[in-house]
């Protein structure tokens, strides 16, 4: 069965030698509820980094 996420790849091209995200990964990137959680997580990470950098 054809897989829409990889249909654009040319076999043996550099592009075909890497990983391509599937539907779930792509969906989660713009899933508002999940991204609200990620928003909080990334902000926390960045705060941690800023605190570590200002010594």
């Amino acid at each position, binding site marked *: 069965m054809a897989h829409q996420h990889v249909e654009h790849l040319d076999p043996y091209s*550099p*592009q075909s030698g*890497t990983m391509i995200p599937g539907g779930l990964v792509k969906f989660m*990137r713009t899933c508002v509820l999940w*991204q609200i959680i990620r928003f909080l997580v990334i902000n926390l*990470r960045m705060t941690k*980094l*800023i605190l*570590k*950098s200002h010594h």
Partner: protein
Amino acid sequence: MARVVVMGGGVSGHTAATFLRDWLSADHEVVVVTPNSKWNWIPSNIWVGVGRMKKEDVVFDLDPVYKKANIDYRQAKALTIHPEGSKESDTPFITIEYTGQGKEGEKEELTYDYLINATGPKLNFAATEGLGPHGGHTVSVCTADHAVHANEELHKVIAKLKAGEKQTLVIGTGHGMCTCQGAAFEYIFNIDHELRAAGVRDKAEVIWLTNESFLGDFGMGGMHVKRGGYIASSKIFAESLFAEHDMEWILGTHVTKVEEGKIHYETLDGDTDFQEFDFAMLIPPFGGVGLKAYDKEGADITDKVFAPNGFMKVDADYSGKPYEEWKASDWPRTLQNPDYKNMFAVGIAFAPPHLMSKPMKNPNGTPINPTPPRTGMPSAMMGKAVAQSIRDMINGAKEPTHTASMSEMGAACVASAGAGFFSGKAVSMTVYPVVPDYEKYPGVGRDLSYTTGEIGLAGHWIKHFLHYAFMWKAQLKPGWKIIPE
């Protein structure tokens, strides 16, 4: 009474000047010498370059802000530094040439007790024949005006695509020694996003042409992050992102010449080739802005004060040792000039001791490797640390009291991959430390609990929020000091 002169009112200089003015009592002077009348939040130029923002959204007038803050603003460019003064006086000074305030072309001497060089990069389009928007064949997003022009050209291409014509768009670096791949990365993904939104992506060939030896190098030797139980290189994620978006990549290139519709380049293998294009945005190489330095007798000491690339020497190890011997401690900490202790350089203006990525040459002897990036957060942190040191030195400290080494600090960076409140995406990265430290973190050079990356809508929200936060902070609006650098 002391006078601190800040050359350059960009990200790092504006940070240094505004904090110094806030901390020093009114009997001390803070002077900013900068040639533009407007301050520009450069990261948002990407959105101007695809028409998502207007120039007015990313700039503001400096004059009222500096008036309100009681900072002496000279709309001028610095020309020369005289750190020993002249035959007549021991007081150090710089010479400036006005570019505005009704004094265009007038020259003046400006004495200082402390000098901060925050002049950023010279956009050296001239290094590659035919590069850049001023008489060349490529566009740029490095200034707000460049980005306005890039957007106009991009929309001509979109119109042709809509009319059914095939178009080739090439984005990347215009010389073997470029840095700032991040900006080009943002631009290519924003273009892809806009082409898809316009329903014409299938008619366009989108190509990444870069001096990086591998995708995801970004001038910092790449980075590793923990993901799905693996520790994976940025190479894998970058390749995945380009492949997912149906983009080709051409690696390890030194662009030698750009003609109408044709980019000529050498590769790391030593081959020469060309790429045809209808639209190209290639980042120029950066150099120092061409300041000269003179001693008391008027003899030229530019070589003593500046590295050959025009960036100012600070407390770094410039011995030129080979890659195998590089250490994190080669990177400057106080950003103080070793010969003139009242002179500092911050942001892009300081001379890095060496690259961060592994140096590479092709068989013809052409160096092809990204030069070290100095992004917004480290630049502003350097500005603030030097301001703290100068404040303390004015108040009696003998030596700089604060440090901001890129091998001891992290950087958070959000790289836009398309704008839109529900459809936008950005890569949110944190890297610690910025300069890989293979002694402390063998194998990957970085602390994996602080080095992270992910793509998603949340990143776009953060990038959008940061735009307003930094425009607010730079205009010294209420609460500006609590917004981190």
